[in-house]
């Protein structure tokens, strides 16, 4: 106990001057600059770059938590995410792809966080809304549309931008349609029903090639259009030599970044609004909330529809970025994937959901392949590892372990919502000491959520 307390205070002694005052500005600027230079000067895909990349992303987290002026945080953010990362992406396209993917999943996690975290509705079929958006753009931008009615042709690629709004509306409508019948159900039933619904959507997408070919069945939809690049000629005139694929990578990166920013703003405003407080009341005690005059079904429906609309928008972007979608893209594992992000970060916490999304995406795309490479080397050196074992194929195991371990040891997540933490402290005020060495000895989860 004593050692952990002293190490805690040592950690605090080091971090306290660096997190506020003039030292903080210097430290943050230096940190971001150092990481940026390291990244840009060493753009090969190897372990050291991975580590620097993680440190680089971590700098955003550190900046967010430091007590420095808001304008400084904004400058750092714009510099790191708007300039350094895209430039680094032109040097090594793999990392910008990781960043774009992480952005897409950040939006999805934020959307699911509205449903699961704010309103307390466990939705295991969230990917269905994502599929709706993706299929909408997939069908309307390709000759697939002519299969439905020969008189119709694919829409102009520039319609991509209005389709972002259409995707949002479609997600909203699907959310309401699904939500209306099921939202009267109790929590655990709701989880199973949404799971069933997610499966139904996948099965339907898999089989709707007859009698009318709408989704092209299990073959999926190929050659989905990308929007035309508006300022590409001006960039070329500047003397930048870049092929279309590189430009599209940058384009999607910036697009996703903008959507993530908008999502964060919307979600943060919602959370502290009257609606957000109503959701919280329902989550904490449904009966009491109804007794206070909160329209339960309407509020739940709103959470469902808002969460779904984010997924609808991202579905359109995702289809356009991937160029190809098929039903297995939207299976149960994908829903669970997003759920793991929300739970890892902390249900109801906006920075938590973002952190969870980034961690899980990096685990998926970078860390697991890295472990796989290490294992292969060890195997070549004669270590007794079964040849078929490939960690990248064992995401379920990883997600499962994450879910169980988080539920048992830290149900409030890595970056808990402040209000939830306060609630917990209220309960655990007597266990304050236990709270300190929580890492060493987990307290009873009964008091947490």
């Amino acid at each position, binding site marked *: 106990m004593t050692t952990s307390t002293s190490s805690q205070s040592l950690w605090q002694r080091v971090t306290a001057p660096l997190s506020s005052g003039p030292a903080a500005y210097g430290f943050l600027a230096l940190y971001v600059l150092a990481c940026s230079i390291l990244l840009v000067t060493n753009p090969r895909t190897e372990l050291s770059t991975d580590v620097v990349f993680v440190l680089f992303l971590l700098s955003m987290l550190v900046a967010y938590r430091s007590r420095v002026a808001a304008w400084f945080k904004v400058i750092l953010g714009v510099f790191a995410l708007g300039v350094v990362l895209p430039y680094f992406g032109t040097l090594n396209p793999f990392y910008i792809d990781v960043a774009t993917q992480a952005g897409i999943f950040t939006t999805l996690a934020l959307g699911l966080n509205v449903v699961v975290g704010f309103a307390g509705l466990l939705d295991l079929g969230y990917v269905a809304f994502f599929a709706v958006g993706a299929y909408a753009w997939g069908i309307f931008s390709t000759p697939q549309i002519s299969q439905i009615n020969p008189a119709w042709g694919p829409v102009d690629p520039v319609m991509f931008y209005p389709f972002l709004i259409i995707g949002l509306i479609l997600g909203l409508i699907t959310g309401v349609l699904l939500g209306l019948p099921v939202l009267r159900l109790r929590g655990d039933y709701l989880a199973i*029903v949404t799971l*069933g619904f997610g499966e139904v959507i996948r099965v339907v997408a898999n089989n709707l090639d*007859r009698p009318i070919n709408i989704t092209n069945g299990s073959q999926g939809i190929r050659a989905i259009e990308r929007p035309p690049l508006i300022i590409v000629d001006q960039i070329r005139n500047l003397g930048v030599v870049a092929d279309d694929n590189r430009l599209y990578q940058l384009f999607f990166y910036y697009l996703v970044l903008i959507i993530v920013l908008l999502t964060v703003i919307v979600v943060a405003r919602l959370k502290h609004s009257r609606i957000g407080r109503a959701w919280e009341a329902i989550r904490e005690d449904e009966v009491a909330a109804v007794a206070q005059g909160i329209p339960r079904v309407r509020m739940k429906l709103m959470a469902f529809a808002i969460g779904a609309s984010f997924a609808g928008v991202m579905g359109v972007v995702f289809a356009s970025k991937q160029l190809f979608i098929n039903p297995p893209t939207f299976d149960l594992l994908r829903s669970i994937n997003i759920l793991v992000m929300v739970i890892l970060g902390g249900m109801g916490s906006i920075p938590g959901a973002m952190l969870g999304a980034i961690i899980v995406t990096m685990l998926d795309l970078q860390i697991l392949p890295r472990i796989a490479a290490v294992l292969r080397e060890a195997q070549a050196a004669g270590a007794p590892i079964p040849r078929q074992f490939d960690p990248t194929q064992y995401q379920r195991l990883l997600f499962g372990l994450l879910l169980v371990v988080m539920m048992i040891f830290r149900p409030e997540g890595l970056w808990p919502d402040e209000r939830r933490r306060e609630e917990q402290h209220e309960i655990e005020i007597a266990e304050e000491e236990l709270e300190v060495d929580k890492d060493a000895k987990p307290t009873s989860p009964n008091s947490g959520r």
Partner: protein
Amino acid sequence: MAVDATVAPTTARRSLGEVLGVVFGPVGQLLAFIVGSAVSLALIVVVLAFILSPTQPDIMQRVVIILPQVIIDGLVRGFLFATIALGYTMVYGVLEFINFAHGEIFMIGGVVGATVSFLLVSTGTLESIPPLVFVLLVILVAMAFCGMLAVTVERVAYRPLRGAPRLVPLISAIGMSLILQDLARLVMTSTPLGFNARYQTPNFGQPIQLFTMQLGDRSVPVILSPRDLIFIVAATIMLVVLNYVVNATKLGKAIRATAQDMPTASLMGIDVNRIVALTFLIGGALGGAAGALFGLRIGTVNPYMGLIPGLKAFTAAVLGGIGNITGAMVGGVVLGFLEAFVAAYLSIFTAGNFSGAAYADVAAFSILILLLIFRPSGLLGEATTQKV
């Protein structure tokens, strides 16, 4: 379970008649539902065929020819769902918690069965033992393994969370289900079993021809394959034994008491933790047996086969009224018949436009959704009010 718990008589011992009553009463109820759903669904398809016959003259014949086979198929599916659903319903009865990982227990039952048969083949004893002994061996090993596994899962992933908000153990159960899937895959792909493990069996003999149906000038044989017969007989025996254990023994009384009111049960001197573990043991053993039988019938098992039957069995448990043991059996059978009929007749009635096999899953989940909206208490359940 709480709902059908018959009021325990004050006398310590029951007469044989009473025991027979509590054991075979539910079985009779089950039989009534089997006959009822088979007859009513058959009537529906025949009437539909009659309505459509002016446009498609041969539809009546096509419908009637496959009818007996569809009923047998429905029966087998029904018993499958019933045996899995019991695991869901018993755990729900005691802990009010959806044991999401139960579908995976079922899958592991199948894998264990495949392993036993693989070991028998590799030692060359498969052909020399009688088929009946083989079936018993496979089922018993799968039951023992899965029962222990379910107890372990409860100890590791659920017991630390008892008393936590509802969603917490559910999420933990989802995680456990993913873990079990990949652990099974890891074991299967790194052993000679392979991802799609073949389930080798001794020769069970020729299909049994029950009777022949005369349809105009054609005679159609109605066939029951030995594997289906094994499935139906084994499932029936398990259901009867379970009914005996739960309704006519002291242990069963303790289980029912715990389901009704856990704190009071523990005040009455019942070791509640032991009863919960026992519930998982029984449910897991039944699920494992169902998995072994399922693999025996299908011929291959894979680590992802548990999800869909698990979900459907949950549907069955809800259909019968979750927490109600007889209800789970009834719900399983009704759902099995419905699904068999949809799978067989959807493409006939839509002129091949919708594949019945693909939309059977959709049908099952649609039933679940409709049911939860209009009658969440299920067929045999009673309406409950939420406790504040």
